[in-house]
């Protein structure tokens, strides 16, 4: 199991290395095109070359940047998720909820009448996700 987990990590690091190298390379080209100073262009070029090499030869060396980027994206996505889903909840679900309750189409409330006769028992239904 440990071996499988290690192999999975290496694969993940290699993918990250190449993606990061491509990203940094695109950034460098754009900066060159926009005539940025060399001391500003150097870091993305170095990072791109470094990750390209680690991706090819030793993906474990990309671990520090992998961890930093991972943490950063986790933080960003956490706040983004809260923002987006709060908006959906209050902006869409809540008004829909009021309307459905108003027109008495609340599915949860519908279940308060005791036994519900079961209409579907077709075994072929298991081929579907619903």
């Amino acid at each position, binding site marked *: *199991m440990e071996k499988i987990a290690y192999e999975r990590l290496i694969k993940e690091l290699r993918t990250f290395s190449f993606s990061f190298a491509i990203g940094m390379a695109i950034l460098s080209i754009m900066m060159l095109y926009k005539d940025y100073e060399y001391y500003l262009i150097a870091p993305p070029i170095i990072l791109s070359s470094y990750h390209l090499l680690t991706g090819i030869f030793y993906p474990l060396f990309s671990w520090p940047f992998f961890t930093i980027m991972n943490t950063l994206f986790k933080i960003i996505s956490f706040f983004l*998720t*809260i923002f987006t*889903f*709060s908006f959906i*909840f*209050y902006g869409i*679900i*809540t008004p*829909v*909820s*009021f309307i*459905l*309750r108003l027109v008495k189409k*609340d*599915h*949860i*409330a*519908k*279940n*308060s009448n*005791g*036994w*519900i*006769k*079961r209409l579907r*028992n077709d*075994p*072929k*239904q*298991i*081929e*579907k*996700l*619903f």
Partner: protein
Amino acid sequence: MNDSYILGISAFYHDSSASLLKNGIIVAACQEERFSRIKGDSNFPGQSIDYCLSEAGITIDRLDHVVFYDKPILKFDRILSSYIHTAPIGIRSWLKAIPLWLKDKLWTEDTIKKTLKYNKNVLFTEHHQAHAASAFYPSPFKEAAIITIDGAGEWATTTIGKGIDNTIEIIEEIGFPHSLGLLYSAFTYYCGFKVNSGEYKLMGLAPYGEPKYSDIILENLITLNEDGSYILHEKYFNYISGLTMISKKFENLFGMKPNKPDIKPTQFYMDIAASIQQVFTTAVLNIVRRAKTVTGLDNLVIAGGSALNCVTNSVILNSKIFSSLFIQPAAGDAGCSLGAALFVHYNYCGNTRIVDKKTDSQHGSYLGPAYTDYQIKSILDEHNIVYTFADEEKLIDFTVDALINQKVIGWFQGRMEFGPRALGNRSILGDPRSETMQKDMNVKIKFRESFRPFAPSVLEEKVSEWFETDSPSPYMLLTAQVKENKRIPFDHSIKGLGILDYRRSEIPAVTHVDYSARIQTVNNKTNPVYHTLINRFYEKTGVPMLINTSFNVRGEPIVCSPTDALRCFFGSNIDVLIIGSFIIARDKQIKKMDIKKWKKSLTRD
């Protein structure tokens, strides 16, 4: 003719598991927690699947069908409807649940295909169809009424159905949010136990109390209708779209805050436990009567987490509404992997079902991994364990003598059990005649609450001599009263945990405070070694039973491998470990195993 293989999977909620059928016969079934060592593990059961395939000696491409135990889209529909029902309340639960659903749970089919590298279509039974199939198909009945009760499936929480030959049909159901399982869980939370795992503690606590609050529950929390249906009164609960089970109104109704985890329950909580147990049993009995009316059949099978309530099961059996009863031993969600696979084999593929009217096809629920003496020896050598090899005869004699000398034995033999109960292959054993054994085993061996009762494993042929029953209970899912002539009267004015200080019968370690015992009957066919052991104990002591509790400590899944057994042995105060043909005595060990990591892995249950 090619053999047909069906893999059932239950995952992503609690207690993941996998089961494998070969031509409809159960080859293997196992819960993921036993391998991952995470109690109630809900992750994808990769290791269980690997085990099932290796037990059958096949690879994934030999599978004819893979089936998942519920329908993710229907469940998502229920979850969305719950938020629509309560919005704008429920944002915290929404933020927790919905991203998880959109990221993972909705894509169950992809996850299964990708993880297993399986190319065919995955099948999806409904949650309660899987429960129903897990109860009916392994039962010894050609036709039976089926009842399933649990927290919630997709929408259904309680169903009545019938099984005839190879088909099952669900006739009617009660829908979310009205759920007996969730009602019981709400009280589990209120009494300070963990929801989804502490329900059996609530059941064990109930006999210490009196059902003083039953009327309050029936007047305010639940309405029981004459037709067996019921309605929960929403304002007292918070589970529809909240993060807790109960609302403030629930607390105000009883005038007490919920008991804190790990705080000894007071008499109030004992009375609450007794009350909900009584109400729950009444509600289930109503459903049983309804099932009889609707189906008109003589046999009953039950599954769903609520079917693990052995007190209620016994009331059902004794009510004689149905002439015979079968309860799926893995009645919780773990058993759904088995049910889903059986549903595909019989109901979907239309294969013929042959039943032996006497024996079920669950194989004693010994469906997990076994280890050879060779494998065990190499593990013992690897950990520098001092051991003695013994043949079966000597092993049994040694164990019985140790038990008589009040030693606590770790007993590890054959295939591991499927389901929450240890049935004599991964068990801790003790002498039921001992007055101090219940407290000692609870506190010193299992590190758990002192009020928890222990169950006896009784010789099937002797059960009626000691208990008020003659029904077999091979899966420890029924209770019975200790016979009058074996009881010792005590002062009934004593209440609560104080009762534990009094010897109540000739077998005090397995007699609960109300003289009941959760019995496992053992016969010579399903577990001959265990039967011989108990029989030898009987020959030497005149008592045909042993204390049987699961081989684990608090917060740990039941041991699976010899290494798990060794860790538990060194981490607890078990005196002797019998593992395969090897005897390991604690006092003979020179070197102790490193169990720091193991101790850290224990969770609060």
